């Protein structure tokens, strides 16, 4: 292979693109993770401790979140939902409203598609997290729960003192793995006009025709990020989850 030139990574015109890509990836991953945890907790609680109707509804929502591919979720919010609005309202509310135009001027990111991506990822991950949390709570010994209820512990205290700390050993590692998977799913932004890291890489490589150099860079980025995240998860597990009888 003639002339592989790995210094293309550092050329100014590409560097800013790539750096912005990293930022977008991190922001989308972070926001969707936080949302997913919140939504997952709500759905999990509804599914585990709710009345019959609530359990059914939550179960359906969780199934919809998990059994439908993440990409379909993202496309649903990015392309299907806007079409519920008539074209002019759609443009006005979603794409040319003041917030969107300001945001785009500042960052070059179309906020609507970024939000759609975040929402789609969050809902998909929340489905998995809800089941993971449920497994954690169901692993708590019955006598502990009964004793807590018998002492008159209110629902909020029940959650913060019993469910969360005692569910964490079982749910923590699986939830952490799922969130790492969520981070990798940010690459689905390649299908939207959202400039995440992978999109930046594909833009750079089609501009410079240096596919091998840039794809290698992309691979290195995700490998390093993955290693950092799983090491961090492992360290957190060791610290927070050493038993605790």
């Amino acid at each position: 292979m003639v002339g592989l030139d790995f210094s293309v990574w550092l050329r100014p015109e590409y560097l800013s693109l790539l750096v912005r890509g990293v930022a977008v990836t991190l922001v989308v991953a972070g926001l969707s993770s936080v949302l997913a945890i919140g939504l997952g907790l709500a759905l999990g609680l509804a599914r585990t401790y709710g009345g019959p109707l609530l359990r059914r509804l939550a179960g359906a929502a969780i199934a919809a979140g998990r059994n439908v591919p993440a990409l379909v979720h993202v496309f649903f919010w990015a392309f299907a939902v806007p079409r519920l609005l008539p074209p002019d309202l759609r443009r006005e509310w979603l794409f040319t409203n003041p917030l969107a135009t300001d945001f785009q001027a500042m960052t070059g990111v179309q906020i609507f598609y970024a939000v759609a991506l975040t929402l789609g990822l969050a809902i998909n991950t929340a489905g998995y997290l809800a089941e993971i949390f449920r497994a954690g709570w169901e692993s708590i010994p019955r006598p502990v729960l009964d004793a807590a209820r018998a002492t008159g512990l209110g629902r909020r205290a029940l959650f913060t003192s019993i469910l969360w700390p005692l569910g964490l050993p079982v749910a923590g590692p699986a939830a952490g793995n799922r969130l790492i998977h969520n981070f990798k799913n940010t690459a689905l932004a390649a299908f939207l006009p959202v400039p995440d890291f992978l999109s930046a890489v594909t833009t750079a490589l089609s501009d410079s025709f240096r596919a091998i150099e840039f794809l290698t860079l992309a691979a290195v980025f995700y490998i390093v990020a993955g290693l950092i995240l799983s090491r961090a998860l492992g360290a957190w597990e060791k610290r927070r989850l050493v038993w605790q009888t």
Partner: protein
Amino acid sequence: MADLIFLWSQVPNLLFGLPAQRPGGLLLSLLLLAASFPAGMLLAVPAAVIRRRGETSRGLLALIAARVVESITTVIRALPLVLLLLLVALLSSGRLAGLGPREIPAAWIALTLFTAAYQIEILLGGLRAVPRDVIEAAQAAGLRPLAVLFEVRLPIAGRAALPALTGQAISLFKDTSVVLILGIPELFTTANHILNSGWEQYFVGMYLALGALYFVPAWAIGRFAGWLERRPRLAGSVSSAPALG
């Protein structure tokens, strides 16, 4: 109402692909699943055995082989599937534009590698779950190491790994939606293609149908897995290992 009529008319296309692109649609998604999952297992079983051997043996060759396999597995698992697809497509066809059904073999290779990386972890867990006394009993009965591997360790590990493996199969089925990036006419690509060729007003209905078309096979595989696990011969508990003599 027009929605339902339109969707109903498109069902054959969604299931089998657009006329010019058959096999496509859900059929192609299932074909990709059926081709990648077993191929992945073919790679994963020897790799998992090698890694397990590296855990229990003192031999330098075993240790090095295990570390090599582990590194490759870690690298593949860290990459988003989108990136892996692009890499394989680039390596096989030398370009990243004008991709289409000719890239199906590349997609198959990428999906196979991707699922194998996860299958290795699952099988490794299964191999670790084989109790030492059973292995020693087999050795005491005079079985040579290779026979111990095939007659004792792999069957027990396989049963232990069955639940996680079916989860991985479901996951792989949903991941076939990502081959959209290579322009391969499976279910998701076909649906988008239909919508983008002028049927924009049916977006929401189509996506709901899409969700259902992914949901049903995924749920069916899950139920099949539950049935498999409940069959007495295949129950995951190690005590159902075949009696030795």
